[in-house]
């Protein structure tokens, strides 16, 4: 306890010097953690599709319709259903209509408004881990009232948890081409609100020139006018009957897959029209994306480590050398020379502890600011590892340098310097 006491005294009796060191350490931890958090955010896009990318197969994106084309949707679905020897994991995307009160324009209260609903196959849906502002991630099962659960981005319509939004399908009367009627198909109940500025799973990989996982996401903001609903598509009610707009599909070879089946499948998809990419190419592009991101962030990380090294060596050396005179006094008063090392360690431990606490607090606080999403920050266990490694590095240096300086110095030399 006495060593801790004198270590503590050393800190509080030189407040300015020690506050500067604490702030420097905290700053280094924050920069290091934010760099790692930025790196993490890239793998957040990659991870949900990682398992699928490890299979042989291809990624297919049907040619986009310039206008709504129900027949084309039906043909896409029929083609997908008729593929032989593959498992298809799909995105389902459709524009539906609603007259929900929050969307209504007071000038035209009876109008129906088109809204986009994105649903995902349950094999990937569960792996998305979108940050929620509140509520929970929607279940793949309909609730007791037969409603489909969904999460939504909060936009100017002020969508909130508990809102039940009726969706309709527009049906054109054969007799009267301009007479459109709306048939209610299901209600969506909002169970979670996606955080602002979140990259949400999108529908069309073709929009991404590099054709990697990043293309599967679109930035959703509360300032956007368009509504965005994500639901699980596992429910047959949602997929088979209504959400027919099939978008990017990940097609995985089954065990009995062979060249004959492959040729036939490729022919069917070719007739449908769209872009087909080998899964291995998609994985390669995505791996390259992750690697590029890592390479971009690497200099910052190395810089942080270099700063930690130089800063700590300087400050610990200055601190230990500055304290030697006092250590000589403790020795005169009955402290063993090797015990002054404990005082030095307590001193360093307190400074590093305060720096680490401040650094971690700063990082967490930053994570809750709007800037975190804007700079694509995502804290996870890698941050815990990095913080642990940095603190360990700080502690090791704080131990090694005083051991070297104090071990190389005889107390009698310090006392002689005084006389």
């Amino acid at each position, binding site marked *: 306890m*006495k060593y801790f*006491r*004198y270590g503590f*005294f050393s800190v509080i*009796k*030189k407040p300015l010097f020690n506050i500067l060191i604490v702030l420097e350490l905290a700053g280094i931890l924050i920069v290091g953690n934010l760099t790692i958090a930025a790196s993490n955010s890239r793998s957040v896009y990659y991870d949900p599709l990682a398992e699928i990318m490890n299979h042989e197969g291809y990624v297919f994106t049907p040619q986009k319709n310039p206008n709504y084309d129900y027949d084309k949707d039906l043909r896409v679905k029929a083609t997908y259903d008729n593929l032989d020897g593959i498992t298809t994991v799909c995105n389902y995307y459709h524009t539906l209509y609603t007259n929900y009160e929050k969307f209504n324009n007071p000038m035209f209260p009876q109008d129906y408004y088109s809204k986009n609903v994105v649903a995902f196959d349950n094999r990937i849906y569960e792996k998305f881990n979108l940050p929620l502002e509140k509520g929970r991630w929607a279940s793949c099962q309909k609730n007791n009232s037969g409603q489909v659960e969904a999460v939504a981005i909060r936009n100017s319509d002020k969508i909130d948890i508990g809102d039940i939004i009726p969706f309709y399908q527009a049906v054109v009367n054969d007799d009267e081409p301009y007479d459109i009627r709306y048939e209610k198909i299901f209600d969506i109940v909002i169970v979670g609100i996606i955080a602002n500025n979140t990259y949400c799973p999108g529908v069309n990989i073709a929009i991404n020139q590099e054709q990697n996982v990043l293309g599967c996401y679109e930035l959703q903001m509360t300032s956007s006018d368009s509504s965005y609903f994500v639901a699980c598509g596992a429910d047959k009610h949602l997929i088979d009957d209504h959400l027919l707009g099939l978008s990017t599909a990940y097609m995985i070879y089954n065990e009995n897959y062979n060249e004959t089946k492959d040729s036939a499948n490729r022919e069917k998809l070719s007739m449908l029209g769209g872009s087909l990419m080998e899964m291995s190419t998609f994985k390669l592009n995505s791996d390259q994306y992750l690697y590029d991101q890592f390479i971009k962030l690497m200099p910052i990380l190395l810089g942080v480590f270099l700063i930690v090294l130089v800063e700590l060596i300087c400050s610990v050396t200055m601190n230990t050398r500055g304290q030697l005179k*006092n250590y*000589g*006094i*403790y*020795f*005169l*008063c*009955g*402290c*063993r*020379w*090797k*015990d002054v090392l404990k005082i030095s360690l307590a001193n360093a431990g307190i400074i590093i502890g305060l720096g680490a606490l401040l650094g971690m607090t700063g990082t967490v606080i930053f994570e809750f600011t709007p800037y975190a999403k804007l700079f694509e920050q995502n804290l996870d266990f890698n941050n815990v590892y990095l913080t642990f490694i940095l603190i360990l590095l700080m502690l090791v240096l704080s131990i090694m340098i005083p051991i070297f300086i104090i071990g190389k110095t005889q*107390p*009698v030399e310090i*006392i*002689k310097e*005084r*006389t």
Partner: protein
Amino acid sequence: MISIKSLTKTYNYKKSNAFTALTDVSLTVEDGEMLAIIGKSGAGKSTLLHIIGCIDTFEKGEYIIDDISVHKLSDKKLAKIRNEKVGIVMQDFALVEEYTVLENVKIPLYFAKKRKRSLNTLALSALEKVGIRDLAKKSVNKLSGGQKQRVAIARAIVNDPSFILADEPTGALDTKTSAEIIELFKSLNNDGKTVIIITHDPTVAESCKRQIEISDGKIT
């Protein structure tokens, strides 16, 4: 009692730049004595004081303090002697400048593992003895030279040691303050403490009951 027999101290022992600071020194200091060790600069006075204070080691000879042979004692036991048996006062006061007077005086008590509740009482009592109890909460760097030396003496006596060792205790003080400090040492000696003062000031030496002179590492 302190008993030194045929003590030799060599710096950089067994190295090419070895230098013998004390040669075959023998000295006995009885309990209750007030002794001045005088000599020119570099004669070996401070080296002898450092050895008596268990700050430094020696290669040959014998040093016994209160029936304890110091040669080859463990660091722990040497630290215990520095803490309990000797109180050391230096020319430059050897105080922690950032601490208050009370905090400085309490340092030996912490290393003596005294009960926390008694620390303030003991420290204030030591300050009372040197006449600066009212300065207890003042920061050391705001004190005069004479006041700082009193703090150093208070710290030296706070653990009630048998021996007070002072290395040029008046070297940084004016004549009037020097006289006051020497009176303080005399008073402590009258209270039964054994006082050993290193000095090259004849006035200080004359105020001690006994003087010995060191020249070229030998007692003359």
